[in-house]
Every structure is written in C-alpha cells, then in structure tokens.
C-alpha cells in the first residue's frame, strides 16, 4: 500500500513540536524513515560545534549496515561536508540533496575538474556509509546535520514523493535542532534573570531588617520555615512538586514585612507594648506592602501572602478579617511561620520563648489564630527536629 507521506509528515510535525530534546527527535525521524520508507538503514550525522566535526549519532536498520551510535564521524574538511557547504544553493540538484544515481549522471556531463573531484570524493564517502542518498539540514548558512540513507529493501529507486518527504524531514530536523539550541540559551537567560530577581528581592528584604532592629534575620528565617511548611503541605496532599507555588512562598516570605518601610521607626522600635493608635498604624504595613508590590504583576500570588499574613483563622485578624478558607494558603503558611519566629526571638517587651513553649502556643492557637492543618504541619516539622 502506498504511503501518504503528507499525512505522515503532518503527524511527525505535530509530535516534533512537543520534543525539545533534539536527540529524541532525531531518533524519531530516523525510526520513521526506516519503518515507513523501508530503507535498509538510515542515520544522521550531527554537527558538533566545539570540535567542528559531524558524528553519526543515530543509526537504525539491518544488522551489519547500521553504524553503531558514536562509532563514526566525518570531519569538516570531508568532501561530503564540503560538497554540501559549497552547494547549498541547490544549483546542481533540484532539492539540494545528493542522490547517488543523479550524481553519477552529473559526473558524465561536462563539469569543472574541481567539481568532479569533489563530487567523486563525496560519492566515495557515501559508498563507505553504503548510502544512496544524503540529505542536508541547514539553518540559514549553517550545515547542522546530514541524513544518510541506505537503499530501499525492495531495491527500487526512491520516488519523488519519498525524496520530498526526506527533504521536509531534514528541514524539520534543522528547525528542531535550532529551536532546541535557542531553548537552551533561553533557559540560561531566564535562569540568570530569575537569579537577578531573587537577589533583588533579598536585597529589598534586607532593607526591612535594617530598619526594624528587633527583627534582624527574621525575614530569612520566616522564608525558610514557610518553604518547609509549603513543601510538607504539597507532600501531604500528594501534589506534584509545584515549583511556582514554592517560588511564590519564597518571595512572599522575603517580602511579607516590606510594608514596614512605611512605618515610623519610633513605632517599629518602641520599647514596650504599642497603644491602640500605634497598633493601628503598625497594622497598615500589610496594605503598604501591597501598594509597594502591586506594580509587579508577576507577583500577584506572592502579594496575597504579603497582604493577608496577619489574618487569623477565626476571623479576628487584619486587614480584612477573613476567616478560615477565605484566607489564601500562602498567607496561612507565612502567618504561622511569622508568629512562630516572633515567639522564639526577644522582643522589646518580652523575652523569647523556647521552641517547645512556642510550639505549645501554636497548638493552643490551632483553629483560632492558626489554620489547623498548617499548625499540625509545623508541629510535625518540630517533632522531626527540622526546626
């Protein structure tokens, strides 16, 4: 039965979009050629930039013909490579590929001695690979890969639609390799940006610690503890590791008190309990934090943690008096971590509690100030000696 190459190609293109690893994709392409077109063997020579050499990375087909992966290479000065580099404008052959029979016909014609020599050497290399057709993959001017094809099982010549099929696959391969390269570069770039962002956030959070003498190191500790609780929550609820959630918790932890930048130092550093008016002013720091961070759209989830980290499970917190499940999880986590760390550090008006005493307080506040699930996670971490 004849194969509908257009359909095969469409199917291939669809699955290729999903593959970021060029190695996986190339294996797919080679397998497809061997299976669908029934060639004796097929392989791909892939350009290795660092050594400027082409390595046969994938090969499939009949035993004895397929070349073991990583066994063979050809260097950049090999005639086959030179031929494709010098003749990529397809002036010699319609589709830019080297088909043994067509090339032999060309050798009979009146061509320059130089071209004749190059072509003969390229054909010799094809013979060594037992290849009857070689299809180059370019991206712009760069020769990224060469598809090496053996003869068909039934001994027939390749039909035009088969050659077209190979040409399309080769160009898809080039695009995929290029995309994968871009993807890797982009990831590196993103990683750099992400690091820059986190470091900026840490610098910002240091500004709060510098202003509020009594909370030195508090921000880092709350962040770490919040992350521990968040990870445990994901584990317990059998959720996949939700990187985005953990990133949000990290940022929210670092910035939960950022609004204190807008609170007078006389209140922040007051020796003794705050009066009602001072308390009211102090409570403003949650909403000031939101005002500061709001322009950064990407922080929408982290901002929820900043805004509501003084809400209480029983509804008696601020700024909105949210209750139970109305309070976002991220805020419930920051709230418990924040309260726990405050208890175990000295404050102007009281001495620090021991961790054991603080844990008793957390237990007592479970269902009141604290979300019962978050409180029990905190207790678990304590019992395991993780905090």
């Amino acid at each position, binding site marked *: 039965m004849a194969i509908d190459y257009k359909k095969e190609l469409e199917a291939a293109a669809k699955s290729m979009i999903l593959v970021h690893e060029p190695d996986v994709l190339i294996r797919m392409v080679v397998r497809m050629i061997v299976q669908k077109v029934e060639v004796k063997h097929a392989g791909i020579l892939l350009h290795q930039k660092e050594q400027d050499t082409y390595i046969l990375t994938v090969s499939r087909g009949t035993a004895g013909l397929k070349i073991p992966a*990583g066994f063979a290479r050809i260097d950049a000065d090999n005639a086959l490579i030179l031929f494709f580099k010098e003749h990529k404008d397809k002036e010699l052959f319609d589709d830019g590929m080297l088909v043994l029979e067509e090339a032999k016909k060309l050798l009979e014609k009146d061509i320059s001695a130089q071209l004749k020599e190059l072509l003969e050497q390229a054909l010799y290399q094809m013979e060594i690979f037992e290849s009857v057709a070689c299809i180059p993959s370019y991206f712009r001017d760069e020769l990224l890969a060469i598809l090496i094809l053996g003869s068909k099982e039934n001994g027939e010549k390749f039909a035009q639609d088969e050659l077209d099929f190979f040409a399309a696959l080769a160009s898809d391969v080039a695009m995929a390799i290029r995309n994968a390269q871009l993807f890797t570069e982009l990831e590196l770039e993103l990683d750099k940006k992400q690091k820059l962002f986190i470091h900026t956030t840490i610098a910002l959070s240091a500004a709060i610690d510098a202003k509020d003498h009594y909370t030195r190191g508090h921000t880092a500790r709350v962040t770490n503890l919040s992350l521990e609780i968040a990870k445990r929550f994901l584990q317990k609820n059998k959720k996949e590791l939700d990187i985005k959630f953990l990133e949000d918790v990290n940022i929210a932890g670092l910035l939960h008190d950022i609004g204190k930048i807008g609170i007078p130092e006389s209140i922040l550093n007051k020796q003794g309990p705050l009066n009602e008016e001072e308390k009211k002013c102090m409570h403003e720091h949650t909403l000031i934090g939101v005002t500061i961070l709001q322009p950064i759209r990407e922080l929408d989830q982290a901002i929820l943690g900043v805004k509501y980290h003084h809400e209480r499970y029983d509804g008696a917190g601020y700024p909105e008096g949210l209750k139970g499940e109305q309070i976002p999880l991220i805020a419930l986590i920051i709230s418990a971590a924040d309260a726990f760390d405050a208890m175990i550090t000295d404050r102007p008006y009281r001495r620090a509690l021991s961790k054991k005493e603080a844990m008793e307080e957390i237990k007592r506040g479970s269902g009141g100030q604290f979300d019962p699930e978050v409180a029990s996670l905190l207790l678990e971490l304590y019992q395991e000696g993780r905090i």
Partner: protein
Amino acid sequence: MPKLLIVDDELDVREFAANFFRKRKVEVTTAVGGEEALSILDNFKPELVLLDIKMQGINGIETLKRIREKDKDLKVIMVTGKKPDEDGSLNICQQLGVLDYIHKPLELAELERVVMGALK
C-alpha cells in the same frame, strides 16, 4: 583472502565492522572479548587484530599483553573511545608494539585505509 580478527564487546560494532571488511574481500572473525580472542588466535591465524580497549572482563590492553606472550609480531590496531593521554594507554600500547591507535568516533575512510593498508 587476508584474515582479520575483530575484538569488541559491542554487538553492533562487531556486526558493522565485520560486514564492512567482508565487503572489502577480507576474511573476518569476531570475538566478544579478550578470552575468546586468545582462544581463536591459534586456529584462525589472522594477519591483523582490531582490538577495542574498553571491554568487559579482560580489557584490550591486557589482551594485547597476552597476545604478545604468544606472538611478538602479530599486527594489532587498537580502537578506543578515550583520548590517548587520558589514561596513558597509548604509551603502554606503543611499548607492546601496536601498528596504530584509532579513536572513536572514527572516520570510516581512515579505518579502511589503515586496516586495508596493514593487510596488504
């Protein structure tokens, strides 16, 4: 016909290399490792041994040493994935007298030239 013994623990390599040289009118026998190679030598009497260095069991260098105990003059070409200076094996091979030393991934044209040249 000239005789070639190919020693490699990788099936694909043995099959490919054997087919490659049979087509070039060479009588080929393959061995999966050093021990098998040594047991084949006396009967097969190859003119040349293509010997992989990194193998399970007795490796290529050890096999070469044992070949030299039997036959000081047998032509041997070593094949390796390592750069020569990485483990000093090139030096050892040279002391034991090898014809050549080829790295994977290799140029098949070079393999053909070296092996066919040695078999002439």
